[in-house]
């Protein structure tokens, strides 16, 4: 009996530290990565580049939401705040002071993290629904403030001044969308790498503990409030990156659009669809919903009508009713089981 136990312990110690995905998944992942790298040369239509740029940006945004909601369990319905801050930070610095958007990118991340502290410290101690509603209201408030703020162009917003020299310094590419694509892909890849590492770190485990049972987490020495704010800061900084790149891509800042509830909603929908708390769920959600949205826009032409949000809404409703953990959750759980039976 005792020797059985000892043998089992030895066997368990000899296992790899992290569970490994099945071979087919690794191969599929590698194939997708390779395809993404050569994509602009295989598909040369501008529209396809546009589509993939949006998928990358939304995958980044959804992953950002996944950090606060999936890892630490707080439902933010005001994430557009940080998207807008990222866009405004880089554009204000460039338009008013001529500072490169690369610096603006960092400034946006920094300001977003500060905003996350300011919003998070009072609100993150609210229970579930109250936090969600608070973020919804704060999101609307920030939009109202930016629409009234003369210094940043109030309701008419700002333009990113067009510069044709030194495109990589000023992050503007007028000849082709391909550089934007690689920038967006790089930003998304960096975000997924960071979250992948985060989930395997002490901080990541602690955030998940806080998500599942805050009191038990506290009894194990985890400062619950501090960890929630920390997750909110990381999430906000990631969202801000997408905002800066988006601003450089469209070159127009419209507070109506940047801070809209729609942005906050869409990142939620994508993550929930793909699988909240999973690593690749947000990317899958973006890869499904962005084309849906763009193709429906083409299909309906310039009627001003949209069907994409309708389909989004129905999809999410169905997912929540029948598969609340999202599409990828079972797949990732099977890996974490390491072949352990139910």
């Amino acid at each position: 009996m005792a020797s059985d136990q000892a043998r089992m312990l030895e066997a368990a110690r000899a296992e790899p530290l992290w569970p490994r995905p099945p071979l087919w998944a690794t191969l599929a992942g590698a194939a997708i990565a390779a395809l993404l790298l050569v994509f602009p040369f295989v598909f040369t239509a501008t529209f396809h580049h546009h589509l993939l740029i949006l998928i990358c940006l939304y995958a980044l945004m959804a992953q950002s939401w996944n950090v606060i909601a999936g890892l630490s369990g707080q439902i933010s319905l005001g994430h557009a705040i940080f998207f807008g801050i990222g866009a405004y930070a880089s554009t204000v610095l460039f338009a008013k002071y001529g500072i490169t958007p690369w610096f603006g990118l960092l400034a946006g991340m920094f300001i977003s993290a500060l905003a996350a502290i300011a919003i998070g410290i009072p609100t993150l101690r609210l229970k579930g629904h109250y936090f969600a509603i608070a973020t919804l209201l704060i999101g609307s408030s920030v939009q109202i403030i930016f629409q009234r703020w003369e210094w940043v162009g109030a309701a008419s917003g700002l333009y990113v001044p067009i510069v044709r020299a030194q495109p990589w310094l000023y992050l503007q590419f007028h000849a082709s969308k391909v550089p934007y694509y690689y920038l967006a892909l790089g930003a998304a890849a960096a975000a997924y790498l960071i979250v992948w590492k985060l989930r395997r770190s002490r901080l990541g485990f602690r955030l998940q503990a806080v998500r599942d049972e805050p009191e038990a987490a506290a009894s194990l020495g985890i400062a619950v409030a501090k960890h929630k704010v920390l997750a909110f800061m990381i999430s906000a900084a990631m969202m801000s990156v997408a905002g800066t790149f988006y601003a450089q891509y469209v070159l127009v800042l419209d507070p109506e659009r940047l801070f809209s509830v729609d942005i906050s909603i869409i990142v939620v929908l994508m993550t929930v669809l793909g699988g909240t708390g999973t690593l690749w769920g947000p990317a899958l959600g973006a890869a499904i919903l962005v084309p849906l949205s763009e193709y429906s826009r083409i299909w309906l032409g310039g009627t001003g009508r949209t069907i994409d949000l309708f389909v989004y809404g129905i999809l999410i409703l169905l997912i929540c009713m029948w598969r609340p953990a999202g599409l990828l959750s079972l797949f990732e759980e099977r890996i974490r089981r390491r072949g352990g039976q139910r």
Partner: protein
Amino acid sequence: MSRDLIIQAIVSGLLMGLIYALVAVGLSLIFGLMEIVNFAHGEFLMIAMFSSFWLWFLAGLDPLLSLPLVVAILGVAGLLVHFGIIRHLLSAPMLAQVCGTFGLAVALRAGAQFLWTPDFRTIANPWIAGRVQIGPIFIGQPQLVAGAICLLAFVALWLFVTRTETGLALQATSQDRQAASVMGIPTDRMSALGWAIGLGCVGVAGSLLSTFFYIFPDVGVNFALLAFVAVALGGFGSILGSLVAGILIGLVESLGGLLVDPSYKTLIVFGLYLAVVLVRPNGLFGRF
């Protein structure tokens, strides 16, 4: 700043507040019964307004005449939502509950936009129109009628909940679902009733609102946000709390708009929410 202007603001704030309160009470009732926040509440208000509009546009029914019909439509919608959707979400994690009703909201809003375009519409020549002058102040007649009917609806709801057997069962379910179930109250049917009544209230509010407010697919968003504030102020599950909080919000909004700056009135109300939930997380009045 004249005294008349302030009185004017108080009266219009009071009347608008009654509508906010009626929207909020439905939200509050539903939350009290099943601890689910209906994020699609504002969209049902929009549906109610469009129902009034189409009944007027296609059948020539004045909104006041079609009010019972709209209430019935919304009540049935409440039953459908409860049996078709909410029951499947009850045992799901909170995220799924939030996103479920949120998804419904997105679909309803986008569906309305697709079917009826984002245009702003109004009901022309309703029975009650124009305004009356009382001393130095002017009151829109539609608003006055709306306020009166809202009050009546509140009285009816209050009597139902406190004086009828079904209403008492509803209260019991809201206070302690398990105990109510042990006492033989069919709690599932009570929840369905809660949804029917909750959305019925929205039906009343939407009908009345359609006589003096623009009708468009996004119209519910702001009302829902204000209803969240009202419910947080009044306490989830409290009827009287919703009434007081709704009126308070109407007053804060109109006086804030007058005294500070109209464009910031919403911010003031949202600030009120944050202040309240941070200091008194159960609202100012508690339950029922």
